């Protein structure tokens, strides 16, 4: 960690997409021989910053300097040839090829008769040895080694081209503790050789274990850069999620309402889980109750919501609804049992872009009735009138194609779709994401009102204040496990949850 010149210097980077300020005046420095972690919540801009560096996104303003000189790259390949390699979360290798082929793809050793495979595999072996992977057989198919090892192979590939900068984007999301240690050993090795490592992760413990320096982004803005040893966990989390000083606070702190967690729950699941998605969880929701799922990115909140709805098929779980033991394995089954789920991924799984607002609004109700019993025009108009007004969708034009609405209004229409089915249990996954503050408040009020009327609500959000404000009970998730469950009360704040997450698992 010598104090030298930064090898990458990004200053005042701004990038704007239609309707979204992805990055605003962000600064970032990368020093050789250092592990520098980029931190921030979902939507903070981490991925955007990396893509700005490698040239995948064009920057609207700001400057990038590499090794002292100004540089603008045109894409990953261009950046790679300048010594900046990126290894993504999904391990962008070709699993139909061998280990050696993946390492050397594009840089194979040629002889007189085309590629000399013996020499190429030797070169691959050398690259692997450099990372301490000498035991891997270059001729083995990539698919035969674990994901953790594949990740290391991806890093070897980056080193074949003698990269000076290695960007690791969420490399540990699918690794277990041992494999993470293996990865960190490799990272430390490279760092000691002078490589500059940009590490992106949201797993706090790992960040503290491996990083020398931290930069925090929030909502596309630069919050601060610190040496890891100078920042406590609590301080870091506060920097990441920030304090919303706006009208949300004016809604009043905790609700003084009746407690609903008495008697038999409306929905009860024991050991609900799915391999590779979330470890078995118990969850109860009472009528009129709002249960919040809190946790950082990747903790498994969405996965749990999807399992309840049957969007993903559970491997295990005993589910009781209104006293009746039942199975919910598909969305069709869920809707039949009056469960509805509002996805966080509205573009891929929510809106049907070319259809009108009206058609999107009535879709779930219509699906429930089946194809042979279409909703009459009058019924459709009633639904449109009710929800477009209630949710304040703008413009309130049922015949507009939904893809022409802003993200926030699309979200409202989707919410309307589910509300129209009159669910008893409503799961909301990030319903206020990407919505302006005024609309946020509206939606939160709607959710509170629904619960008042007796609906059971599971509320998933990465904004802890929101979860605390609305929930009666809060289930805390971390690393695809349930780590705690608390009842909301006057002493519970976002800090409480932060502490739960921070203290869990740090046994070192």
């Amino acid at each position: 960690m010598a104090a030298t010149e930064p090898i990458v210097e990004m200053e005042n980077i701004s990038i704007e997409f239609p309707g979204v300020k992805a990055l605003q005046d962000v600064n970032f420095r990368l020093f050789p021989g250092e592990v520098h972690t980029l931190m921030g919540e979902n939507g903070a801009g981490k991925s955007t910053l990396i893509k700005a560096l490698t040239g995948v996104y064009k920057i609207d303003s700001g400057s990038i300097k590499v090794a002292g000189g100004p540089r603008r790259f045109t894409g990953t390949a261009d950046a790679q040839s300048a010594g900046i390699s990126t290894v993504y979360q999904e391990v962008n290798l070709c699993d139909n090829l061998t280990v050696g082929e993946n390492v050397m793809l594009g840089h194979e050793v040629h002889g007189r008769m085309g590629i000399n495979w013996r020499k190429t595999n030797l070169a691959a072996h050398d690259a692997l040895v450099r990372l301490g992977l000498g035991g891997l057989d270059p001729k083995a198919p990539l698919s035969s080694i674990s994901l953790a090892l594949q990740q290391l192979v991806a890093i070897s590939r980056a080193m074949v081209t003698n990269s000076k900068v290695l960007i690791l984007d969420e490399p540990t999301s699918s690794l277990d503790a041992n494999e993470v240690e293996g990865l960190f050993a490799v990272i430390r090795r490279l760092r000691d050789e002078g490589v500059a490592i940009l590490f992106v992760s949201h797993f706090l413990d790992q960040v503290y274990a491996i990083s020398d320096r931290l930069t925090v982004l929030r909502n596309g803005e630069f919050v601060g850069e610190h040496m890891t040893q100078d920042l406590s966990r609590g301080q870091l989390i506060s920097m990441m999620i920030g304090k919303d000083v706006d009208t949300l606070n004016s809604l009043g702190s905790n609700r003084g309402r009746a407690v609903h967690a008495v008697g038999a729950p409306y929905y009860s699941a024991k050991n609900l889980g799915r391999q590779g998605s979330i470890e078995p969880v118990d969850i109860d929701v009472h009528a009129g109750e709002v249960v919040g799922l809190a946790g950082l990115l990747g903790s498994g909140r969405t996965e749990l919501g999807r399992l309840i709805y049957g969007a993903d098929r559970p491997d295990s779980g005993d589910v009781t609804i209104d006293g009746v033991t039942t199975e919910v394995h598909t969305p069709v089954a869920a809707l039949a049992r009056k469960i509805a789920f509002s996805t966080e991924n509205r573009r891929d799984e929510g809106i049907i872009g070319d259809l009108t607002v009206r058609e999107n609004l009535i879709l779930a109700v219509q699906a429930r009735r089946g194809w042979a019993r279409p909703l009459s025009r009058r019924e459709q108009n009633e639904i449109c009138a009710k929800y477009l007004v209630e949710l304040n969708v703008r413009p309130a034009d049922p015949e507009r194609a939904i893809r022409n609405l802003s993200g926030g209004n699309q979200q409202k229409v989707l919410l309307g779709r589910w509300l129209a089915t009159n669910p008893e249990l409503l799961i909301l996954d990030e319903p206020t994401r990407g919505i302006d503050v005024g609309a946020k408040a509206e939606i939160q009020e709607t959710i509170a009102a629904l619960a008042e009327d007796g609906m059971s609500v599971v509320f998933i959000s990465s904004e802890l204040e929101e979860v605390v404000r609305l929930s009666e009970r809060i289930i805390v998730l971390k690393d695809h496990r349930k780590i705690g469950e608390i009842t909301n009360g006057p002493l519970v704040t976002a800090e409480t949850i932060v502490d739960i997450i921070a203290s869990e698992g740090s046994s070192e």
Partner: protein
Amino acid sequence: MSAPVSRQPSTVQFVTRLFHQPYVWAIVALLLLLVINLTKNPGYLGVSVNPATGNLSGNVIDILRASAPIMMIAVGMTLVIATRGIDLSVGSVMAVAGAVSMEFMQNAGTGSFGTAAIAVILALGISAVLGTLNGILVSIVGLQPFITTLVMMLAGRGLAKVITSGQNTSATNEPFRWLANGTVLGFPVVFVIAVVIVAVLAALVRRTALGLMIESIGINPKAARMAGIRPVGILISVYIVSAVLAGVAGIFSTASVMTVEVAKTGMTAEMDAILAVVIGGTSLAGGKFSLTGSIIGALLIATLDKTIVYMSIPSSATPAFKAIVIVVICLLQSPRVRALFNQRKATTTSTRKEAVSA
């Protein structure tokens, strides 16, 4: 964005709305072709009524008669394409339907109505079986539609040849022949039947929620599933419909000559069907579809075929011309070209990739 139209007279409203339809250019082309015919013969559009039988005859009537089989396969293809699929086997299913009916009637001996009826039922039944096979392979087994229907296209023609032992089987059966050559209320029977079938399908698709579900599956299959739509039943149904309609088209085309030409019947049918669909404005990528557009496309193709013959242009050039039109429309429907057009319009659409994904 929508201008207040309530104050304009209704005809202006109608024309304005017409011009926004994707198939408006097809209508223009259709009228253009008729005009070309009129230049050669000002009496081209004349329709005469036979006083004895009440039958209508004339060039326009011939066009309607020729458009019937094309309408059938175009409508079927529209529904399949709307679900993001394709049915390359329609031509072969036509041949199979023709083969089955001709073989049966030839072997049955009697030229009775009963024989004809059974022949029709057999032909449509086998078509339905082939369609079911396609549907199951695509929706349950999960094979790609193009490979499934490509195999069916070639195997189907083989099947037709096996049924007739390689011969071009003919048969005599007046009631069957009446289908192609007869008239109802003066109009050709084929056309009337085609119109009725299309009307029934249109009602089925637009008056029930079926059309909405088909479009949802085609536009965003994941979202459709999350909303509680069951894709399997709908997918199998559209492939069955496509095959049965192809069977009807096969009956129409073999009935006119009372012979099935196993190598030739339905030979370029899939191209005509796809052309009709894209002219009509339905995108090959699936999603929103227009039966009206496909019907206009079918009429256009029939008119084109007749015009080429009428103007004494060698008809061997027609397939190439149709292929070029398909390529051009493919280009026009492609995202790159669409983006070019959309740049002119105000962009409130989220066409750029979402930046905020962690």
